[in-house]
């Protein structure tokens, strides 16, 4: 057995502040403010369409029915619309995330039977804060705490791929059907691919050092019970961080969309990325895997491809491959996965994404 060297500056047990009683009572104070905020948000949201029309045809004024008018109206309407949706959803998801630290998610998942675990892991992956740079400590933290390998993979697939920014953008630009299908199929890919990896019993393809004994005792600093002001601040921080990072890409995406909206699209993409080209879906996935971008960065490209006649399923498969699977992620995960398991993981998820691509092409 390996012994781990002890040192004086190691982790120590942390005393937890018990804020339970305060947390239970003070959330009610925020309900009226929450309702008032939502009403204001809704009124603003509702007035965006008349506002855009007024700016375009009265303030500027552009002739009604013109290409330029249509493009400007689309941009003036869609930019604040998508940014408002994004702010609301990111804030809400931020508050939900303050309840689901990785430590709590791990606690929920450890000891769950496989099928139930895969479903839960995929769902929790969407609401647990995650960044691909934390994939290794998270993977080891899960697997060594008794979360089954396949369940861990369901989490690792769903966390980056089912993404609230992508969901909002798809809803804002293509409607609730596309957004809903993205959400449901993304979760299904995470559940099924994790389940398949679990069935393959590939535990021996995890690098050996993962299971070396470690001195425990650290608390991860995530166990404290947050009071409501802290949760609200978590939501505000999420908005500042995420909306602050992606707003430019969003505007760029909408500008591309506006250009397409106003001017008749060419259809030269239809031949290579249209519905009739069966090989376009695997090609889109193959192109997407080595690329790495966040969900917002890929949306302008999605807009452009769709506008040029590419099929929705093909474009969605491309998007999922870019944000869900990437070369940097593979390099990071190679530290804990032996090559065969890494290849199986990417292969199964890629197959799932292609299935979704074909499904969308078939439905729409």
């Amino acid at each position, binding site marked *: 057995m390996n012994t*781990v060297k002890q040192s004086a*500056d*190691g*982790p*120590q047990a*942390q005393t937890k502040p018990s804020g339970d009683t305060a947390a239970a009572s003070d959330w009610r104070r925020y309900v009226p403010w929450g309702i008032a905020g939502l009403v204001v948000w809704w009124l603003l949201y509702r007035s965006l369409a008349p506002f855009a029309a007024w700016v375009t045809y009265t303030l500027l004024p552009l002739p009604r029915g013109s290409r330029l008018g249509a493009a400007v109206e689309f941009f003036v309407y869609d930019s604040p619309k998508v940014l408002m949706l994004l702010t609301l959803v990111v804030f809400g998801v931020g508050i939900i995330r303050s309840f689901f*630290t*990785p*430590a709590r998610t*791990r606690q929920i998942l450890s000891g769950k039977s496989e099928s139930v675990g895969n479903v839960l892991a995929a769902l929790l992956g969407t609401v647990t*804060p*995650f*960044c691909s*740079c*934390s994939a*290794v*400590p*998270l993977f*080891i*933290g*899960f697997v060594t705490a008794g979360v089954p390998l396949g369940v861990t993979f369901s989490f690792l697939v769903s966390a980056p791929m089912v993404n609230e920014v992508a969901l909002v953008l798809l809803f804002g630009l293509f409607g609730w059907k596309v957004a809903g299908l993205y959400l449901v199929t993304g979760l299904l890919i995470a559940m099924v691919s994790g389940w398949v990896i679990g069935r393959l019993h590939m535990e021996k393809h995890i690098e050996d*050092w993962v299971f*070396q004994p*470690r*001195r*425990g*005792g*650290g*608390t*991860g*600093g*995530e166990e404290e019970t947050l009071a409501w002001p802290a949760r609200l601040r978590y939501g505000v*921080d999420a908005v500042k961080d995420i909306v602050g990072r992606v707003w430019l890409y969003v505007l760029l995406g909408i500008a591309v969309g506006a250009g397409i909206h106003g001017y008749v699209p060419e259809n030269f993409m239809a031949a290579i990325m249209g519905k009739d080209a069966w090989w376009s879906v695997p090609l889109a996935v193959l192109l997407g895997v080595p690329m790495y971008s966040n969900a917002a960065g890929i949306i302008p490209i999605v807009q452009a491809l769709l506008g040029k006649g590419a099929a929705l399923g093909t474009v969605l498969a491309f998007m999922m491959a870019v944000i869900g699977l990437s070369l940097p992620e593979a390099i990071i995960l190679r*530290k804990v996965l032996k090559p065969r398991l890494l290849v199986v993981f990417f292969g199964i998820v890629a197959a799932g994404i292609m299935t979704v691509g074909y499904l969308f092409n078939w439905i729409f």
Partner: protein
Amino acid sequence: MTIKIQILGTGCPKCKKLAENAAAAAQAAGIAYELEKVTDINRILEFDVMLTPALVVNGVVKTAGKIPSIDEIKALLA
């Protein structure tokens, strides 16, 4: 008394930012400190941290997976 600040993270830009903030906070508070960047994954895991970057003060994990502001870190150092 010198406090020991450790930054857990495998060297991503966020870790550097956290280290800068922590140093700035300690200096602003006039606290003598010693700063160490822990990049070895096994040592990070000994703290049971699953989200990086994490801030450790005198061996206790204070924050994980986020970059607190200089003012927030000042409160954690006290």
